[in-house]
C-alpha cells in the first residue's frame, strides 16, 4: 500500500463520527488538565483508563492520545500567567514565560506557545508518518553504551540554563541527582535514602517533585500578594495577543531547533518531553546572541521548549507502538490499552494494524488543528483569570495539585511529598538558588547511572566500550569539544577583564 492509500485509510478512520467525537473529547480534556497545575495527562489517563475496557481500540487510543498531547498545549498557560507549571514539561517555560506575562505580554506568549506547540507537534507527526519504522529500528540499536554517551552530552549541553552563580546551579543539579537516587538500587535491590519509609522504595514521582518545587513554592512565596495582578485592560484584548514581526522572526529558528531536539528525545524511552523542553531551552540560550535577555522574557525561551515538548509527545509513540517500549508511565497506560484489546505492540503493528495506526496518526492532525483553533479564543479567557484575586486562585490550585497527585497512585503519601518539596522550594528561593536544574539532575541522573552500570555489567567492567562503539565515541567527543569550547571562552573573557557577557545590539 502506498502512502496515499494509507493516508486515505487513516483519514477515513479518524473522521468517523465516533472517532472524531473521542478526539474532540480527548484533546479538550487534555488541554484542561494541562492548564490546571497538578492535574496532568497521567492523572486524567489513569482515571479514564477503566473506560477503555468498554471502548473499541481506535476510539480508546484516539482519546488517550488526545489527552496526552493536549496537556502539553495547556501546560504552558499557568507557567506564563502564574509562574506555576501546569505539567512537568512546562517547567522551563516559566523562566521566560512568566516575565513576559509580567510585562503585559502574556497574550503574545500564550499565542506563540500555541503556534510553537502546533509546529513541534506537526514535525513529530510527519516523522512518525514517514520514518516511524526506520526510527524504531535505529532506536533499537541504542544500547546502554550509546545511552550513557548521549546523557553525558545532554548534561554538558544543558549546564548553562540557570541564571546567576554557576556554583549554585551545579549544587542544584547535584540535589536533583540525590533525589533521583531515592528508592531501590535497580541492580542490587538495596534501598537508598528511603529513610525507612516504605512508599519511598519506588522513588520520588516526577509530578510530585515538579508540583512541589515549582508550584507550591511559588504559592508560598506570593501568599502575601492578596490583590489581583496589575493587568491593565489593554493587555487582555485581542490586539495584545498579536506578536510583533520581531517576535515571529526570533521564534522561527528556535521552533525548528526545538522540534528537532524534541523529536529526537521523544524516540528515546526514559527521556521524554520534560527533558526535551529543558534541552531546547539550554541550546537556545547557548546559541543566542541575546543571552542577557534570557530569564527576562526572551521569546525564544518559550517557543523552543514548547515546540520541543510537543514534538516529543508525538514521537514518543514510535517506541511505544513499534518496539513496545513505553518511555513514560503515561505511555505505559497507552500500551496497556493496546494489550487489553488483544493487540501486541511490536514491529508488525504498522502493517498488521494499518487502520489503527494510520487512523491514530490522522487523529493527531485533527487533534493538533483543533487544539490550535481552541487555544486562540481561550487566551483572552485565561488572561482574564489573572484579574481574579490570588486568595481565590491559590487555594483552588493547591486543591487541584493535591487531587492530581493523589489520583495517580491513590496514596496520601504522595501529597506529603508535594508539601515537603514545596517547603524545600521556598527555602531555596529565599537563598536565591535556581530550582530548574534540580529537574535536570532528577531525570537524567538515574538514567546516567542505570546505563553506565549496565554497560559495565555487560562489558565485565571494561570502560573502553565507550570509545569502541562508534556512536558513543562520536557523541562523547562532541561533549568533550563543548566542554573545551566553554572553558576556552570563559578563559578568554577573564583575560579581557570582563566576566560579564557584553550585550550585543541587533
Amino acid at each position: 500500500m502506498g502512502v496515499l492509500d494509507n493516508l486515505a485509510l487513516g483519514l477515513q478512520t479518524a473522521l468517523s463520527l465516533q472517532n472524531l467525537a473521542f478526539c474532540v473529547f480527548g484533546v479538550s480534556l487534555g488541554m484542561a488538565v494541562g492548564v490546571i497545575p497538578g492535574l496532568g495527562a497521567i492523572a486524567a489517563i489513569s482515571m479514564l483508563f477503566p473506560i477503555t475496557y468498554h471502548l473499541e481500540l481506535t476510539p480508546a487510543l484516539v482519546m488517550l492520545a488526545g489527552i496526552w498531547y493536549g496537556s502539553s498545549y495547556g501546560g504552558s498557560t499557568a507557567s506564563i500567567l502564574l509562574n506555576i507549571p501546569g505539567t512537568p514539561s512546562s517547567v522551563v517555560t516559566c523562566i521566560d514565560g512568566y516575565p513576559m506575562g509580567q510585562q503585559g505580554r502574556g497574550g503574545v506568549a500564550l499565542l506563540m506557545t500555541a503556534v510553537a506547540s502546533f509546529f513541534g507537534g506537526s514535525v513529530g507527526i510527519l516523522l512518525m508518518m514517514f520514518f516511524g519504522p526506520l526510527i524504531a529500528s535505529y532506536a533499537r540499536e541504542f544500547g546502554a553504551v550509546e545511552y550513557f554517551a548521549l546523557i553525558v552530552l545532554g548534561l554538558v549541553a544543558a549546564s548553562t540554563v540557570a541564571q546567576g552563580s554557576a556554583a549554585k546551579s551545579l549544587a542544584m543539579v547535584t540535589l536533583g541527582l540525590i533525589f533521583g537516587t531515592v528508592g531501590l538500587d535497580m541492580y542490587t535491590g538495596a534501598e537508598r535514602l528511603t529513610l525507612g519509609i516504605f512508599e519511598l522504595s519506588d522513588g520520588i514521582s516526577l509530578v510530585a517533585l515538579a508540583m512541589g518545587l515549582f508550584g507550591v513554592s511559588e504559592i508560598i512565596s506570593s501568599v502575601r500578594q492578596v490583590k489581583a495582578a496589575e493587568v491593565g485592560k489593554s493587555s487582555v484584548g485581542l490586539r495584545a495577543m498579536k506578536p510583533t514581526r520581531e517576535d515571529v522572526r526570533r521564534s522561527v529558528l528556535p521552533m525548528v531547533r526545538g522540534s528537532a531536539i524534541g523529536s529526537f528525545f521523544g524516540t528515546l524511552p526514559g527521556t521524554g518531553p520534560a527533558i526535551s523542553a529543558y534541552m531546547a531551552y539550554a541550546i537556545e540560550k547557548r546559541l543566542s546572541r541575546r543571552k542577557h535577555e534570557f530569564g527576562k522574557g526572551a521569546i525564544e525561551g518559550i517557543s523552543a521548549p514548547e515546540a520541543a515538548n510537543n514534538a516529543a509527545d508525538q514521537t514518543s509513540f514510535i517506541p511505544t507502538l513499534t518496539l513496545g517500549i513505553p518511555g513514560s508511565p503515561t505511555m505505559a497506560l497507552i500500551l496497556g490499552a493496546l494489550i487489553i484489546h488483544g493487540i501486541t505492540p511490536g514491529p508488525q503493528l504498522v502493517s498488521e494494524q494499518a487502520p489503527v495506526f494510520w487512523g491514530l496518526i490522522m487523529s493527531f492532525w485533527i487533534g493538533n488543528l483543533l487544539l490550535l483553533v481552541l487555544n486562540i479564543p481561550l487566551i483572552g479567557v485565561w488572561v482574564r483569570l489573572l484579574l481574579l484575586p490570588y486568595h481565590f486562585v491559590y487555594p483552588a490550585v493547591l486543591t487541584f495539585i493535591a487531587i492530581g497527585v493523589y489520583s495517580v497512585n491513590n496514596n496520601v503519601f504522595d501529597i506529603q511529598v508535594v508539601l515537603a518539596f514545596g517547603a524545600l522550594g521556598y527555602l531555596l528561593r529565599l537563598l536565591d538558588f535556581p530550582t530548574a536544574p534540580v529537574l535536570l539532575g532528577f531525570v537524567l541522573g538515574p538514567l546516567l547511572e542505570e546505563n553506565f552500570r549496565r554497560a559495565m555489567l555487560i562489558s565485565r567492567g571494561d570502560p573502553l566500550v565507550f570509545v569502541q562503539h562508534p556512536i558513543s565515541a562520536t557523541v562523547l567527543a562532541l561533549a568533550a569539544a563543548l566542554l573545551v569550547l566553554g572553558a576556552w571562552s570563559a578563559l578568554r573573557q577573564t583575560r579581557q577583564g570582563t566576566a560579564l557577557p557584553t550585550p550585543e545590539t541587533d
Partner: protein
Amino acid sequence: MHMKFALLGACAATMALTAPARAEYPEEPVTLVIPFGAGGITDLVTRRIAEKMAAGLGTDIIVENRPGAGGTIAARSVAESDADGYTVFVGTVGSQVVNPLIRDNVGYDPVESFEPVGLMAGTPFLLAVNPGLGVETFGDLVTYAKEHPGELNFGSAGVASSPHLGLELLKYEEGIDIVHIPFNSGREAVNAAASNEVDMTIDAAVVIMPQVKEGLLVPLMLGTDRKMVAAPDVPTNVEAGAPEISITSWNGLFVPSGTPEDVVSTLNTALMGALADEELTAALEAQGTLLFTGSMEEYDAFIEAERTRWSTIVEAADISIN
C-alpha cells in the same frame, strides 16, 4: 463442666441468630484491590473477571489500583482491613510468595494474614535467545552455557522479578553460570535480547512472540507443561526435558483471615462462575494467559509448591530487597 456447656450453647444460639443477617452478603459493593497500576495483565484479568463476578454476586464491584513497593503497600492495607468480605485482595506470586521472602518487614504474613478465595489466572513464561547465539534447543543452550561459563548475559525485568527468579531457577537446576542484567521492564529486556545487547531473556508470550515472528528471537521452551495457543510451536518444559523449570506469573483473590466461611464460599462460587466463561478463556488464551480451574485443595497445593520452589531459589541465589 456444666457451666462450660451452657456458655457454648449460648454462643451457638447467638451465632444462629446472627447467621441469617450475614447470609445476605453482599449488602454493599465489594472492592477488589489490585496491587499494580492500570493497564497490565493483572489489571486486565481482574477487571474482566470482576464484571462477571458482579453479575454472580448481584452487587457492584469496585476495582481499585493501589500500586507501590511491588504490591506490598496494597497487601499490607488489605491484611489490616475488616474481615467482612467487602475488601478483597488480588494477590500475586509476588505478594503471596516472593515479596515476604526477599523484603524485611512487609507488614503481613502471606499465610496467616490471608485466606485464599481462589486462583484466577496464570501467565506461563517463555525462554528465548538471540539467533546470533546459534542455539536451537534448550539442551543446546545448557551445553553452550557449560562450555562458556559466565559469558552469557541474561536480561530481566529487574531484581526479584519473575524473569530474574526464572534465571536463578535455571542456574540452580542446570548448574550453569549466566550473568544477570536487570532492566526497568520486561519489554526493555526483551528488546535488548532482540538487538543482541544481551543473549537471552524470559518473559510472557505476548511480549516474546512478536520478536520471534520478526526473526529476532528464537524461543526455546515454555515455563509450563501445557501447550500454549499463543506459542503453539514452542516445546513445553516436559518436552524439552526440563520439567523442573516451571515459571508462571499467577494471581488470585484473597481475603483477610477471619473472614466468615460462608462469605468466602459466596465469593468462591462467584469466582468459579466467572472463570467458567468460555469467551473470556479464549480471549486470554490467545494472549498467553490461562484461567485456573480446580478445587481449593489443588490451589493450596499449587501455592505451597510455588512457595517451596521460590524459597529454595531465593535462598540459593541470595536475593533480597532492603
